[in-house]
């Protein structure tokens, strides 16, 4: 569990620097105001790590969220990045708009299970469909944290509330949903497993399109008790990594060798290679239907399969689909946009 406490004025010359000369601290944000032990804070730490490792200039990132404890977290990382804490459940449309305006921004969306699967379900699904380029993290704790512990739509049947009452509505599984809707990058992880989450985040950041990461992120205050299926303990006991992602950077080389069939390499648009190490050798993480069937099968046997579960080898994001110019629309000069008086005069003739 990490709480990011930036001390902005103090320089730490001893801290390791990344390729652009920034330290880990340069990727931090304000002090977290979440409950001590909240899973969301660990995800924040993983985000900081991933951006630092990839040497992404913080100010080229925009952090977007809805409303909820999870949605507060963008304040706790990348203080040099613009943040947008939208209204409840509607971050995906803000993301689509921001992506439309400036395709050069790296968009990171953080949401909760209430935010994405209840009030925001429609927007979530349509952002997938539109393949908006955004790394979309769903910090999934099975409850509404900020409004004090109601079941969310991801709560499993039989999972118990703090006061003992069991949830009776079937859960919406965001991973299966994303696969069904044709998402091009689908992962599930656990806030307690940074070793798994950081590489997934890095892979997501190289993905051109909607990169979806469902992260089980226990709510210590309202959903970490006996009988909950989103507790630290339950998740630790039931999570099974089925695909591990490693990032082979542009000019990098992975030297370790793996058994035949144990890995699948996917080359991303920018040339980076995502190497998927699979637990089940016959599992193909680039086959949507296989991924779906495999996850369902494991779930039936009580497991929570995790990892970069599906990665589409080819993907066209919103801008490619819409054939927009390569530069950000917001950077176009007035002259490039306004046809001018001569054009108007000519146009007017058509209305005479």
């Amino acid at each position, binding site marked *: 569990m990490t709480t990011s406490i930036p001390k902005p004025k103090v320089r730490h010359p001893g801290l390791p620097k990344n390729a652009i000369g920034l330290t880990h601290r340069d990727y931090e944000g304000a002090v977290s105001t979440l409950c001590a032990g909240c899973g969301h804070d660990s995800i924040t730490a993983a985000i900081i790590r991933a951006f630092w490792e990839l040497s992404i200039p*913080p*100010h*080229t*990132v*925009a952090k*977007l969220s809805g409303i909820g404890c999870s949605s507060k977290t*963008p304040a706790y990382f990348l*203080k*040099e*990045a*613009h*943040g*947008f*804490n*939208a*209204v409840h459940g*509607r*971050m*995906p*449309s*803000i*993301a*689509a*708009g*921001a*992506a*439309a*305006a*400036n395709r*050069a*921004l790296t968009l990171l969306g953080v949401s909760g299970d209430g935010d994405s699967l209840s009030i925001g379900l*429609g*927007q979530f*699904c*349509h952002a997938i469909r539109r393949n908006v380029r955004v790394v979309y993290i769903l910090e999934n704790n099975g409850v509404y944290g900020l409004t004090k512990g109601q079941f969310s739509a991801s709560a499993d049947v039989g999972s118990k509330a703090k006061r003992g009452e069991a949830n009776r509505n079937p859960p919406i599984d965001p991973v299966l949903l994303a696969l069904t809707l044709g998402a091009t990058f689908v992962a599930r992880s656990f806030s307690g497993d940074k070793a798994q989450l950081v590489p997934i985040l890095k892979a997501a950041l190289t993905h051109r399109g909607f990169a979806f990461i469902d992260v089980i992120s226990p709510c210590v205050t309202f959903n970490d008790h006996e009988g909950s299926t989103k507790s630290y303990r339950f998740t630790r006991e039931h999570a099974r990594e089925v695909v591990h992602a490693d990032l082979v950077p542009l000019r990098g080389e992975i030297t370790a060798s793996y058994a035949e069939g144990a890995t699948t390499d996917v080359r991303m648009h920018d040339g980076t290679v995502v190497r998927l190490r699979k637990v089940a050798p016959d599992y193909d993480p680039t086959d949507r239907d296989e991924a779906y069937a495999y996850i369902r099968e494991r779930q039936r046997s009580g497991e929570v399969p995790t990892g970069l579960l599906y990665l589409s080898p080819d993907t066209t994001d*919103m*801008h490619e689909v*819409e*054939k*927009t*110019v*390569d530069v*950000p*629309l*917001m*950077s*176009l000069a*007035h002259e*490039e*946009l*306004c*046809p*001018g*008086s001569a*054009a*108007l*005069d000519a146009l*007017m003739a058509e*209305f*005479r």
Partner: protein
Amino acid sequence: MPTTTDRTNDFALKIATVNGTGSASANGLLMQAIFRMGIPVSGKNVFPSNIQGLPTWYEIRVNHRGHVARTPRFDLVVAMNNATYERDIRELQPGGYVLYDSSWPLPTSLVRDDVTLLGMPLAQMCVDAFRDGRERLLMKNIAYLGALTALLDVDISVVDTLLEEQYGAKKALLESNHRALRMGREYALKHFDCPLPLRLEAMPRSDDWILIDGNTAAAMGCLFAGATVGAWYPITPSTSLMDAFRGLCARYRRDPVTGKNRYLVLQAEDELAAAGMVLGASWAGARAFTPTSGPGISLMSEFIGLGYYAEIPGVFFDVQRTGPSTGMPTRTQQGDLLLTAYASHGDTKHIVLYPADPGECFTMAVQAFDLAERFQTPVFVLSDLDIGMNDWVCRCFHWDDAYRPDRGKVLGPEQIEKMQAFYRYLDADGDGIAARTYPGVHPKGAYFTRGSGHTKLGTYTEDAAEYQEVMERLARKIASAAEAVPAPIVERRPGASFGVVSIGSCDGAVREALDLLAERGIVADYLRVRGFPFHPSVEEFLLAHDVVYVVEMNRDAQLRSLLALETDMPKTRMRSIRSWGGVPLSADVVVEGILESLVEVHA
């Protein structure tokens, strides 16, 4: 047989058909031909919320003095829909004419002895003249158009040119149209007393006039203002605005080298998402807009509040339709005046522009972007179905190449670099407007945009004083927009004994009414509001008159309410005249309303 006085270039006609049968193009041709003859004309398409098979009307009014507001007094009815015969003939003025399809006899119960029946076996003629079933149906429309050219003395060469322009490439189609047109025309010339006293006479024509609908004009405004992101969810009567924008962009916004698009139109999953896309795109530095109608504004309410409080620009076109709820989607109204002025929960107030015609749709669309970015807030352009979807004769649009978008206070990387620290909501200039930065530009420009309580430094707060400080600035900021919105159009007339105030598409009917009243010696000053918060001159005008008539198109006198709320004019001095059944206002309503009220007062 009844007689009519000479009504050259001064009459109204109505064409009653069934939707989905192709009458729109014939009606449009007639309208355009009259326009090209230089005669002031208006066409109102009264169509059902349905795709095929229900009654639809096209109303045309010509008036050489330029009064082309809708009139309910029709001199001629082209009765092509037997389902509405009764109503159509009933609504005819004494001395009027009915052109009908005599392939079937007219029920005798409908015959009025104060009107002239002009029967013409249109269906039969088309069956004889054309082979294909669909063609027979479509050409019936062109055939009645042909008859009308004879009856009304339409310059046939103008119609020929129009057909040529429209179907030039499609020879077969052009030929059919020509044939049907001639067939109808010749039948009329042969059987009727052509032209009728309701006839047209070409007037001197100038290039200064165009025929255009408000949604197309608004789309041009978006294009010229440099909007790059449009987000929308289809809804009548706003849909054609985005259609037009896409059409224009396909022509003007393709990169000449790569062929790639310099715009992106997002068909959103609903209006909530469309609003979010607009705010997201504006926040990221694009000019972004959404066209919608009343139900969409209701759905966008939460996001509108976010835009207000987090100070994010955005242009929202509300092409108003009739009613609360779904209402009558294909009828016009001005029912969203209160809603748009104060949309969303909590204390909010918004900038709203009120175009009266397509010309203002064009100019106000551009102004809306400037105001939205200058004041960093959502701006509404409140058009309506009548303006948006009907063709209006307007002065030609002009563009000033010196125009540069007012992007408001946006700090560039150099400016940010020079700053000690950047605080998003700090009123450095004392004008209520704080500078903003775009994401991705500079590390020191970063801040956290949120709809929750924040201080002038941009940090989260739950403290009363800090919260109030920002909210008070917002109130000042929006109040200061009163001077920036388009000033009202004011016409003072010597000897005026009262004032009249109106808004939007009421304009034509009110002007006509004022002329009619003046003819009777009743003289009034006139003001048309064009923006909210109201320009100071609105209050001045009101206070300068003992009595002001407020003319608008909604049930609850929403403009009068806004004026009562936002000016010092006592409500008791504002009398309400309203027409809100869904059809455009006509001068009669205003004249009668004022006369009745004057009588009351003097009684």
